[in-house]
């Protein structure tokens, strides 16, 4: 499962980190880092992360 974040709209809210900590994290400067290829087992978490992103910047590509 490919995880795509639109870096133009992402504003480092970090809500995705709470929903799917294994896939998203904020670095020392508070900027988002994430896996672009995530395991199928965490699909539900990544879907929740996409839901809670205030900028709706996260897309899942199967």
């Amino acid at each position, binding site marked *: 499962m490919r995880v795509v974040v639109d870096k133009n*709209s992402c*504003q*480092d*809210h*970090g*809500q995705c*980190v*709470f929903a799917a900590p294994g896939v998203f994290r*904020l670095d020392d*400067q*508070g*900027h988002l880092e994430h896996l672009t290829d995530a395991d199928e087992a965490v699909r*539900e978490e990544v*879907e*929740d992360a996409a*839901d*809670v992103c*205030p900028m*709706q910047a996260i*897309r899942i590509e199967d």
Partner: protein
Amino acid sequence: MAGPVLVVGASLGGLRAAEQLRAAGWRGPVSVVGDEPHMPYNRPPLSKEALVGAAPFASLAFTPRSHAADVRWLLGHRVAAVRLRDGVAVLDDGAELGFAALVAATGLRPRRLRCPGPAGPASGRHVLRTLTDARALRAELLRPGIRLVVVGAGFIGCEVASAAVRSGVREVVVVDPEPLPMLRPLGELLARALLRLHRAHGVRFRLGEGVAAFEGDGRVTGVVLDGGQVLAADVVVECVGAVPNTEWLAHNGLDLSDGVLTDGQLRMGGLPDAYAVGDVARFPDLRHGGLPRRVEHWSMPGDSARHAGRALAARLAGTDAGLAPFAPLPSFWSDQHGIRIQAFGAPELGTGDVRVLDGDIDGDVVAGYHAGGRLVGVVALGGPGTAAAAARHRARLLRLPLSPSPEEHRP
């Protein structure tokens, strides 16, 4: 039971309720009725990126999850009344819709000032809740040389002031009867810091004063303050709070005194197949003493719809989801003059005892809000990294014990 689930309100709460029903395995029909003409869209940018033109209005629509593709959308229709016990909803055109279960997601509408003076769509008096509102306001902000008066120094009023400055409006005045902006939600320490921020960007404030009337013939030309002084104005935005859309729920024996009262599973009036989600739901707040509250933050529709969707899908399948009572950790953010405010928990319940946890108030700061000596909320204010700074304290809030649910108190 195979009858349709009817969701009333086609915004974030309605969309997430429909999606979560599907995610929880409900395969039967789901219809969403909404009185706005648009598919659900994201409201926070309406007072931020979209109002300054940095995000096109068309980009705000949510992308529904693929498994919710067969949800039926009845847009541009208002539910005028409902008979919950009979499973019948009546639309504004008189048409009736039957349902086996219902989710109320009708949110809020802006409160309007009732004072003498010009009123109506062409009066130059605006509110900001919908895409239509934001388009109209943006068009006015782009008119050269306008003088803007924002009534109400809450979050939306302060965001509008910030967006107006960024859009090139040179005269922006914010009026509020409170002595400081955002005082009720943030308390004095942060409210003072934000007042300084706004002033540094050229926003003027008339605090401790209310609006008595508007001047003008057909279109507003001035705002009359309580003391009699008149502020010249070409455009006014009224950001004085919001009222829950619950009229359609009347005559069902529900407590509609402030939104609709639910139990800990988000059911209305103890009915097994009627739920409320989002801004309109007043639920027992188990994280903060158990008293029922409404919480008007973007995180609520998603969190409550996840709970209600699961509970309802299980109920429709004849099982019990066995969910613990709904006990979200609210969070909200705001963007003003390039500064991010990020909150977790319920800072508004702890404004009497605010302590700096990290940083200092003249720069990036994280403040802790306490009630009865206990941490109830954290708010971070600052530049990039603010969200991460607040997040470090979020875990502490999550560890706090919940109050027993009101149901458990019953003999």
